[in-house]
Each structure stands twice: as structure tokens, then as C-alpha cells.
């Protein structure tokens, strides 16, 4: 079946479930509960905008397996759901996200990282070989997720890259600690932020360069790395070769790729990518605030919200009556770690704890699995809800925001027992 007819049949299926007849078949459920939300599918989620479904195809960038193409230039490619059936996302399947179309091919030999800024004692430069030789190696397993992952599922839709569920991945990142490198430059008493720039650039000179900043205290944390390895291999070009920043718990926007300059500054960074983009209505989410960036009515996005993804089922799947339904997937959050994942097949009236997989660290994907009975023919709606160790749980209803960030609505996957 081709892409558009698949999406049409899925759309028809989901729409059918929302109709009064199907609701009656499911029991007397409130209409709001039966709304379509994040039914996992392999390529086209029925909730995505029509134009997104019509345009996206599988396409392999050099060195990558076929990924879901959102845009060619700059390249934005999402990881298909099947690659989330293991807790570590393979490099070749890891999602690709760039803001600006100028992405240089950098040779490991020529690359130089410059450290400086008005709140640094001195300017220092390191080659890749020097970084590897002169600093203690450090490693962390952490989820890298685009702030706008699942934006395409927003209702009403908001403009942007219309991601499904795959603008994320989990990897073992290896490199050196940013704080060790900053110590060589010397951080002055008045330091406020650490400003990060990569080698990527816009086709037009006047377009704001993609530059991000972090609060000094976050930048100095031991788990924040300048990483040059991902899952035991050099970073793929598309994921920031030769080195990128790794900020466990924080959304992908801060994980600057092809890192070239790190500046310690005494003033807040106010370029477009900090002052205007990647911002949330103030106080709408319970994530940490970025104190030096509160000069506008909104605030920067910071850490990820708790989330989960069912990888063993997608809406429209048919399962055999009498056989248990295997509900499997992954869960993660902004760094507290996953406390539990619960499954419901009665629209949230009751929840059963899933079994959690091996703990790979509080910043990592955590696998979960549960078998649920399928005793009677008809539709079953499978829901999975993750709760972090700090007590944060996925939300039942979308917290809408203009730029389409932090979508962590509990999925509802419609399965047909036949």
C-alpha cells in the first residue's frame, strides 16, 4: 500500500472510532476520552497534517538507513518507530535535525574548538587530538530529543517541522567534560552563561547564526560533555561530527552540533535562537527556569518532560482473541529517572504497572513491557502512562503552546481484537 492510502485508511479507522456508533461499541465513553491522540504507526501517524503525510517518504542520507524525511534542506529526518524497540538507538537510525542549510563537511584533523568570552580568564584552543589526550574521558547514556518532537500531533496544528514521534534517540555519549575544558580557560567570578556555536551556517549572511546558551551552573555539571563518540563510534556527520555538546535532561536545542566555539559570558545571550525561538509561555510547565533569560514575557524551554512511546503496537493493528497483547515500549524524562509505567485498557479507569527493563541511568530510555488479556472481540484502546521519580506524570490533555513543544500526552492506541 502506498503512503497516502495507508494514512487514509488509518485516518478513516480512527475517525470511525470517534463516531457515535463506534463509541457505543466501546461502551458509553465521554467523547473527549475517545479523541485520537498519538496512535503509534510506522510512518504516517493519522494525526499529522494532511500535507505532512502526503510529502514524507523514507529516504537514506549518506551513512544512514532510510529515515522519515520531513525536509531535504536543511535536512530534517525522523527515526521510524521500529528503531525504538531497543533502549539504545543505532547511529545509522538516529534522527537528523538542522536549522540552517550550510552544514560543512569537517575533517577531524582540521577541527579546532575555541574557548573564550568576556567572562573567561583567557582564550584557549584545542584540536580533537588534544581534547582526547589532555582530558579525562567521560561517558553518559542520555536521550537527545528535539523540543518539538510530536509537534505534528498538536491539535490545533502549529507551524514548524511537523514531527511524529521519532525526533529523539538514546545513545551512549563519550567525550570530555565541558567543565574540565572550561577550567583551562578559567571562569571569572562574573560569569553568567556559556554560549555555544557550531560550524553550521545559514545560506544568507544576515540570517541569525544558530547560537545557544546555557546557565553557567548547568554548563558546569559533570554530566555535560563535549562528545566525539556515540555508541562507541565517531559521531555521524549528520549528528554533529566531529564533536557536539551533550546536555543530559535538556532538550536537543542545547546539544549544539559541530561545536566550534564556547564563550563564557557575563551577559545573557540575546540572539534570535535564545530570545525568540525555543520559548514557552511562562509558568505553563513545571520544568526548571533559566533565570538569566527571563527578560521577555516568555521563557526558554529547558529540560524534557516525562514521556513514553509504545513500540509494539500501532493504531489499526489486529490481534487474535485469546492471546495476550504484548505492550512494550520506552519511557524517559528530564533526568529524575522513570519510577513506573502503567498500562490501561479501560480509558484510564484502572492502571496496571508494567515491568521495567534494565536501568541504564536516569537520563536514558527505560524499557517497559506488560501482557494484557484480549478476551473479547472488538476494539481495545491501549494507553501507557509514565511517571518519573520526581512524581511527574504524562498528561491526559495537551498543554498547547504556540511553538509546539513538550508534547507528552498519554498515547491512545486503538487495537482490534478479532
Amino acid at each position, binding site marked *: *500500500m*502506498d*503512503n497516502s492510502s495507508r494514512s487514509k485508511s488509518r485516518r478513516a479507522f480512527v475517525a470511525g472510532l470517534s463516531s457515535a456508533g463506534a463509541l457505543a461499541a466501546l461502551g458509553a465513553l465521554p467523547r473527549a476520552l475517545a479523541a485520537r491522540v498519538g496512535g503509534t504507526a510506522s*510512518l504516517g501517524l493519522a494525526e499529522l*497534517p*494532511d*500535507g*505532512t503525510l*502526503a*510529502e*514524507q*517518504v*523514507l*529516504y*537514506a*542520507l549518506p551513512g544512514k538507513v*532510510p529515515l522519515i*524525511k*520531513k*525536509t*531535504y*534542506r*536543511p*535536512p530534517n529526518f525522523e527515526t521510524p518507530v521500529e528503531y525504538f524497540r531497543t533502549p539504545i538507538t543505532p547511529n545509522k537510525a538516529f534522527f537528523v535535525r538542522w536549522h540552517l*542549510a550550510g552544514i560543512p563537511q569537517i575533517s577531524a584533523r582540521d577541527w579546532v574548538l575555541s574557548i573564550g568570552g568576556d567572562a573567561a580568564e583567557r582564550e584557549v584552543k584545542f584540536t580533537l587530538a588534544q581534547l582526547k589526550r589532555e582530558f579525562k574521558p567521560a561517558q553518559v547514556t542520555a536521550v537527545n530529543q528535539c523540543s518539538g518532537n510530536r509537534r505534528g500531533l498538536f491539535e*490545533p*496544528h502549529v*507551524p*514548524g*517541522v*511537523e514531527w511524529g514521534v521519532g525526533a529523539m534517540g538514546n545513545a551512549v555519549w563519550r567525550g570530555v567534560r565541558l567543565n574540565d575544558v572550561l577550567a583551562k580557560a578559567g571562569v571569572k567570578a562574573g560569569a553568567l552563561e556559556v554560549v555555544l556555536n557550531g560550524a553550521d551556517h*545559514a*545560506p*544568507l549572511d*544576515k*540570517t*541569525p547564526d544558530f547560537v545557544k546558551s546555557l546557565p553557567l551552573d548547568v554548563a558546569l555539571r559533570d554530566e555535560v560533555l563535549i562528545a566525539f563518540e556515540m555508541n562507541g563510534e565517531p559521531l555521524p556527520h549528520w549528528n554533529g561530527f566531529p564533536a557536539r555538546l551533550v546536555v543530559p535532561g535538556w532538550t536537543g536545542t542545547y546539544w549544539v552540533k559541530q561545536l566550534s566555539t564556547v564563550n563564557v559570558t557575563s551577559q545573557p545571550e540575546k540572539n*534570535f535562537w535564545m530570545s*525568540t525561538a525555543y520559548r514557552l509561555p511562562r509558568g505553563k510547565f513545571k520544568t526548571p527556569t533559566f533565570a538569566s533569560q527571563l527578560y521577555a514575557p516568555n521563557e526558554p524551554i529547558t529540560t524534557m518532560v516525562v514521556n513514553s512511546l509504545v513500540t509494539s503496537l500501532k493504531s489499526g493493528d489486529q490481534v487474535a482473541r485469546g492471546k495476550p497483547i504484548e505492550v512494550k515500549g520506552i519511557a524517559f524524562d528530564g533526568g529524575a529517572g522513570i519510577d513506573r509505567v502503567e498500562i490501561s485498557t479501560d480509558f484510564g479507569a484502572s492502571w496496571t504497572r508494567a515491568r521495567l527493563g534494565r536501568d541504564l541511568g536516569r537520563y536514558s530510555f527505560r524499557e517497559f513491557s506488560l501482557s494484557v488479556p484480549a478476551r473479547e472481540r472488538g476494539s481495545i484502546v491501549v494507553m501507557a502512562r509514565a511517571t518519573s521519580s520526581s512524581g511527574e506524570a504524562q498528561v491526559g490533555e495537551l498543554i498547547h503552546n504556540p511553538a509546539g513543544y513538550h508534547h507528552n500526552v498519554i498515547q491512545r492506541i486503538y487495537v482490534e481484537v478479532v
Partner: protein
Amino acid sequence: MRIIVAIAAVAVAASAAAQESKVVLKEGAGRDKAMQCLACHSLDYIQMNSRFMDKAGWTASINKMINAFAAPIPKADVDSIAGYLAEQYGKPAQR
């Protein structure tokens, strides 16, 4: 499934630039002016963001490209580009 596999096979052989050139905007008044978007990004950005914006939404998007990203689109072209995008890629009219 067959078509998806075929697309993937072709994709491996061709470059992303060749793929991008296959993204074609629909015919319609204002299409030529809308081609200015190519200066910075592929045209699939337009299709991807359809069909949920009205003319005001597309106007806001174009103005963001001009004001935030310094796109060299003459102010005089904004209305005709927005009109084209609303017509070809806009929210379907309310029934």
C-alpha cells in the same frame, strides 16, 4: 509497502539535491514569487505545513522569514505569496 521500498531504493542511489528538485509547487497565481523560498530551504517545508493555515497564518510565516531570518523577499510580494499559499496549501474553507 512496495512503493515505499522502491522509494528507499531510488533514494540510496540519488543525492538529496536530486530528491529535493522533485518537490514541485502546485500551479497557481503567485507561484513564481513563492519560489523565492528556495533561497534558504527546500519547498517541502510548504507542503509539510499544509493544510491548516489560513492567509493570515501564511502571512505571519512569510513575515517571520523576512523579519527573523532576513529573507530578501520584497514587502510588495508578501500578499501575493500569502494568497498563493493560502489558496494552494491553506486551510480548506469552512463548510
